[in-house]
């Protein structure tokens, strides 16, 4: 479509004449205007940048100028010469023309020239007056232009069409033309903001266009006075040319019809059928990923298109196709992979996916798949099943990932985070729906993938209703809503079903690994320690997890930690300690769990790495409380280490069970002034010191008190059980420590006294002491009738211990010495013979 005429004075006048009655045609032209202005705007900015194009076009306009001058003085030979030059210049600038489209002024010249030549041709009289040279040139030029213009037939035709439709134009008032040009420039600036908004609208911008026209007209009239002044402000060249040669035509900057203009045009009268819509869709999509494409506008366009197709009942196939593309362009909106979508955009996307799923559920005859080729798609023919290219699973997965990204990038302590988190339910809903859909339609792999998504959204949540049900509280104090909630399946059952499907069907190792880990995590979270442990042991993940990618490793770490905490809750201190040891001993628990980056200098990681690491972070709502983790670890370490330390006080080769615990102890010792404990660590250290003395009451009061409750223990679901377990453990281990430490000062001790001291039942005391005797930790025997422990005193004293150590060391020394001597005996013997030589 000719752009020149759309903006030129002709259309202007046309509007003024037909502004009242909005004929379809008028709508068409006005409708086109904003976009054109927009593109003009664009071009203006481009002109600055693209000097090559500028140069070429200037060359062309200069030649055109001379041609027009020659036309005026009827110098045909000059005309011919210049035309040939123009032809060459045009060829030279072909690359630019290919990119930008044929410039308007060029078309205009071609059309004018042909008209002019025809006119001259018919004017027999004039022809006769011409000299021979001119006449010859005229005939050659006429033939040439006729031939040449065939290439530009369509453009010229459209040019002429507008030309004819507007009667005023034919007068070819150059002055006015020039005005309109400059006007064009001016106005495009004035309308800049409007045009951006309305640029993408297609269906509902009729009204807007009309008002726009009004604005334009108004301006036009108002500005008419000023225009003469304005002309002077326009580029010098124009000014000069205009005055000197009265030829403003040349300066018109040809608009290049952009791809997206075309689809809008089809609204003009053309019958909207699926073929047209598909064509438009492809056109829109072609602009995708290109540099200058306005992505927001594109999304708008696609939305509009879906609206059109909906209105025109073009069938679900097309709708689905468009929806796919809308979602894709929503994802495209952010070019940077690291950046996160705006929550609003994401919500739009969510809606779209929801609608898409609606359609898919309603229409059973739609097949979607990545492997359906573009050309084998069936979008329109409704009696056959629709075939649409696209993968809804990928879209949903991407949506989920974007959700994670949004959560990662929101301040976790803000209201915004809570608001965003509320959408998690919708995400789950969509995943659930897709899951149902894929269960009936998708391949096994797809089902596995969506199952994993579902698992990922389930595994870290504590199932309160199942918990409550297991406690047998159901039904009594329930509101209706609660009742409703508890209708659903237990998450444990869901997890079990989904995971087992994946174990059986999955063929990619990664999904299975993730599923196992999530399953273990879920078991551990719900205190099903044995299942969790067995699964962990059966999976053999511990052996090869270091080969997995970092996100899986993070998941593994999370699982191990959860496993450890679970073991702790169950009172399996040793298991808890072992599970947590790896994570805690590194001192980088935060990083290993993907819950934050450690401060490190930039040498160790550059900005790029940091970005990658940031992307791996687990969103806040899935975090494991680090203080809880550390506390659990330290307390289990305390329960293991303190009796061990007491038992092996004089052992030179004593090994530390937990380095970190020892570190904490040392830190505590280094303090010059010991106040009452404040932090969790200080509490544990203070408790350890009390335990070392066998003072379980103090130890208990340090471990379980208000502060620690609020900090740590209340975070467990079954707080009371854990606390009871802890007290029991503290009593037992204190008893053991006491016996280790003070057995040397007793000849015998009554078990009854011990049971009173540690508030343990007699049988327990009996069993603990028996165990110690059996393990040869305590040199004693039980005297049954009197219920006393009789010490044997076979433990070596410290001096004896030292002597033993010394003997051991000396043994090593002798061994080393002999090794030296072995070497000496050969070639270099003699050093040790010195003694014999010196002492005769």
């Amino acid at each position, binding site marked *: 479509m000719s752009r020149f005429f759309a903006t030129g004075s002709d259309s202007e006048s046309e509007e003024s004449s037909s502004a009242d009655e909005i004929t379809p045609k008028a709508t068409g032209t006005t409708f086109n205007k904003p976009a054109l202005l927009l593109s003009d705007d664009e071009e203006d900015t481009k002109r600055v940048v693209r000097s090559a194009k500028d140069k070429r076009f200037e060359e062309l306009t200069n030649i055109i100028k001379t041609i027009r001058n020659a036309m005026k003085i009827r110098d045909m030979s000059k005309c011919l010469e210049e035309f040939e030059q123009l032809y060459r210049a045009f060829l030279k600038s072909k690359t630019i023309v290919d990119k930008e489209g044929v410039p308007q002024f060029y078309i205009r010249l071609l059309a004018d020239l042909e008209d002019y030549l025809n006119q001259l041709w018919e004017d027999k009289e004039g022809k006769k007056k011409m000299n021979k040279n001119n006449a010859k040139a005229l005939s050659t030029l006429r033939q040439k232009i006729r031939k040449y213009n065939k290439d530009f037939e369509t453009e010229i035709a459209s040019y002429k069409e507008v030309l004819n439709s507007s009667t005023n134009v034919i007068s070819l008032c150059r002055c006015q033309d020039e005005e309109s040009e400059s006007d064009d420039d001016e106005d495009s600036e004035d309308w800049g903001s409007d045009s951006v908004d309305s640029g993408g609208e297609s269906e509902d911008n009729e009204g807007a266009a009309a008002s726009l026209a009004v604005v334009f007209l108004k301006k036009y009239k108002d500005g008419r006075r000023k225009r003469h002044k304005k002309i002077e402000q326009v580029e010098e060249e124009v000014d000069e040319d205009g005055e000197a040669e009265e030829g403003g035509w040349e300066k018109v900057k040809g608009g290049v019809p952009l791809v997206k203009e075309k689809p809008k045009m089809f609204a003009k009268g053309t019958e909207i059928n699926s073929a047209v819509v598909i064509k438009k869709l492809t056109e829109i999509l072609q602009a995708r990923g290109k540099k200058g494409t306005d992505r927001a506008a594109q999304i708008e366009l696609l939305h509009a298109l879906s609206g059109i197709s909906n209105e025109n009942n073009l069938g679900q196939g097309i709708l689905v196709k468009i929806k796919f593309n809308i979602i894709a362009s929503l994802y495209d909106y952010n070019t940077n992979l690291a950046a996160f979508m705006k929550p609003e955009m994401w919500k739009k996307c969510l809606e779209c996916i929801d609608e898409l799923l609606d359609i898919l559920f309603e229409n059973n005859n739609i097949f979607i798949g990545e492997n359906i080729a573009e050309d084998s798609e069936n979008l329109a023919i409704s009696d056959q099943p629709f075939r649409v290219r696209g993968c809804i699973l990928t879209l949903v997965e991407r949506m989920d990932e974007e959700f994670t990204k949004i959560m990662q990038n929101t301040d976790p302590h803000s209201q915004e985070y809570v608001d965003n988190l509320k959408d998690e339910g919708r995400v789950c809903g969509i995943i659930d729906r897709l899951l149902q859909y894929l269960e009936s339609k998708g391949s096994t792999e797809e089902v596995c993938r969506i199952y994993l998504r579902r698992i990922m959204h389930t595994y870290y949540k504590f199932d309160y209703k199942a918990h409550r049900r297991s406690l047998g509280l159901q039904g009594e104090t329930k509101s209706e809503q609660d009742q409703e909630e508890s209708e659903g399946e237990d998450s444990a059952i869901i997890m079990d079903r989904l995971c087992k499907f994946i174990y059986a069907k999955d063929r990619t190792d990664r999904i299975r690994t993730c599923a196992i880990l999530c399953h273990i995590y879920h078991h551990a979270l719900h205190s099903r320690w044995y299942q969790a442990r067995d699964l962990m042991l059966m999976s053999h993940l511990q052996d090869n997890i270091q080969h997995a990618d970092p996100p899986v490793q993070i998941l593994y770490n999370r699982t191990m930690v959860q496993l450890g905490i679970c073991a702790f809750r169950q009172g399996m201190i040793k298991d808890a300690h072992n599970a947590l040891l790896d994570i805690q001993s590194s001192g980088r628990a935060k990083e290993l769990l993907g819950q934050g980056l450690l401060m490190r200098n930039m040498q160790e990681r550059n900005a790029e790495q940091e970005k990658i690491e940031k992307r791996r972070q687990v969103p806040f709502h899935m975090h494991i409380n680090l203080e809880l983790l550390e506390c659990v670890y330290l307390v289990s370490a305390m329960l293991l280490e303190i009796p061990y330390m007491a038992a092996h006080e004089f052992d030179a080769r004593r090994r530390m069970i937990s380095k970190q615990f020892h570190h904490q102890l040392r830190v505590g010792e280094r303090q010059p002034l010991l106040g009452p404990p404040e932090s969790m660590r200080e509490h544990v250290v203070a408790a350890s010191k009390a335990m070392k003395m066998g003072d379980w009451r103090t130890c208990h009061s340090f471990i379980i008190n208000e502060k620690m409750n609020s900090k740590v223990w209340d975070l467990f679901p079954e707080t009371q059980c854990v606390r009871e377990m802890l007290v029991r453990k503290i009593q037992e281990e204190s008893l053991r420590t006491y016996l280790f430490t003070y057995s040397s000062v007793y000849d015998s001790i009554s078990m009854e006294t011990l049971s009173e001291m540690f508030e343990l039942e007699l049988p327990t005391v009996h069993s603990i002491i028996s165990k110690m005797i059996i393990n040869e930790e305590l040199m004693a025997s039980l005297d049954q009738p009197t219920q006393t422990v009789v010490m044997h005193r076979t433990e070596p004293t410290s*001096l004896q211990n030292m002597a033993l150590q*010394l003997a051991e060391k000396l043994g090593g020394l002798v061994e080393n010495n002999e090794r030296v001597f072995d070497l000496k005996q050969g*070639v270099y013997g003699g050093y040790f013979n010195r003694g014999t030589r010196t002492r005769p």
Partner: protein
Amino acid sequence: MCFGPFPLHQTMASRKESAASGSSPLETPVKQIQIDGLVVLKIIKHYQEEGQGSEVVQGVLLGLVVEDSLEITNCFPFPQHTEDDVDFDEVQYQMEMMRSLRHVNIDHLHVGWYQSTHYGSFVSRALLDSQFSYQHAIEESVVLIYDPIKTAQGSLCLKAYRLTPKLMEICKEKDFSPEGLKKACIGFEIMFEEVPIVIKNSHLINVLLLDLQEKSTVADKHELLNLSSSNHLEKSLQLLMDRVDDMNQDIGKYNTYCRNLSKQQQQKQQYLQRRQQENTQRQSRGEPPLPEEDISKMFKPPQAPPRMDTLLIAGQVNNYCQNIKEFTSQNLGKLFMAEALQGHSS
């Protein structure tokens, strides 16, 4: 532990001159040391006042040589100084001290130095270096080792040591390599020689002491008869163990050195053999033999670990063992005594 640069070069120079111009340049080494009671008391007092725990106190001995015995007639302590007062000039201090003593007509000739010890640990490199420079400059000089712990247990422990001439030679040459030590045939037993000590007081003091002895009441506590032993033994054992550890390390080092050396020797031998074979082949073919190459350059022997420290450690270990042996035998005696006493009383 710090060992000040005790032997003053200025004084030493003058001493040497005087020694050279004097009767004889010490043909017979010092056979006996006669210490004035005053010196003993001063040393004990010095430790009591300044030494705590394992801190070591040091001081300068003054006296003169009479025939084959060295008479130590006076001493003065060397102040403890920390790292932070840098401007403390030790030489200056000694000079000042000695000058002042001369003014009040006290023997001012430098004849050695004294040092306290902690559970008999004094055989160290620092002591060796120090004593070497002393003996190098002032031939008759000795080091007095005072053991405050044993003294506290009831028996005065003061010992005088000198480096043996052999060790002096080695130190002079500064050749502490295994070969050097082997050649010198030196072992830890013959590094130091102990010189017998006689404590001598003037008659007046002896009279006074006898007088006091009669007047004084018998002390109630007899440290000498203390039966508890484990504390002392534990400490000694601990120190002994540390030294044994060090020794072990040194031996390990030496072991690797020996292995490396022998490996290299083998390589060298192989190389030489190959070379010889090639040469004979060449000769048979009538070609000129291969040019001589510097084998020592090709096979650089590995750096030998210095053996002096090992020797010193061995000496120290020996020392500890002696101490422990002494202590335990005494203790055993005491225990038997106690048993007998108990048996008698019951």
